[in-house]
């Protein structure tokens, strides 16, 4: 069980009802972590439509993560 920080934006932030939170998790990968959170909080996006970043760098879904990491799930973008 490790502690990480999760940051939410846009539709994910609205559904979760907050911008960031500290979470205790046993998930072994970022993919597993998202699936856990999506199930628990009813997050609207399927994982294949998202990207994920650790400490402000995009990484792959099968990446692992370390205690204290800041993890951001990136919904489909619409800037510009």
């Amino acid at each position, binding site marked *: 069980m490790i502690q990480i920080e999760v940051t939410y*934006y846009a539709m994910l932030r609205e559904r979760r009802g907050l911008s960031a939170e500290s979470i205790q998790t046993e998930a072994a990968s970022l993919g597993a972590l998202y699936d856990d959170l999506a199930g628990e909080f009813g997050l609207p996006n399927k994982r294949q439509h998202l990207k994920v970043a650790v400490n402000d760098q995009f990484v792959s879904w099968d990446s692992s993560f370390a205690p204290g990491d800041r993890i951001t799930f990136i*919904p*489909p973008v*619409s800037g510009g």
Partner: protein
Amino acid sequence: MFALSDRPLLEHPLVQSLADPAAGALVTFEGRVRQQNQGRAVTRLEYEGAELLAANEFKSIEAEASQRFDITQLHCVHRTGMLEIGEIAVWMGVLAPHRGPAFDACRYVIDELKKRLPIWKKEYYADGDSGWINAP
């Protein structure tokens, strides 16, 4: 260079500070809030961005543009927060010795920005509805 800003973009230092005596061409692009999108009347827009991640990703886009096109300076600012119709959502300026690469680079960067930068737009409609664009 890239920044997010919650103030009107033309006041931003990055807009004012493009200058290079070797540059013969400046191409700028402004994306403005339109009064309609896909047939629905829009009353205002809200933008939200992941600032550090966006800055990192913009650096990659800027490096690609600098490698492909002979340009000397590239500045871009994207608005966050609530915007009214006609306000500027994104501004970018590209300086280059000659105009061809300035046009090409500006177009490349705005196309990539729209695909890759972690920035989200929520539209508010005249009928009271609202929604994040690209939401499932």
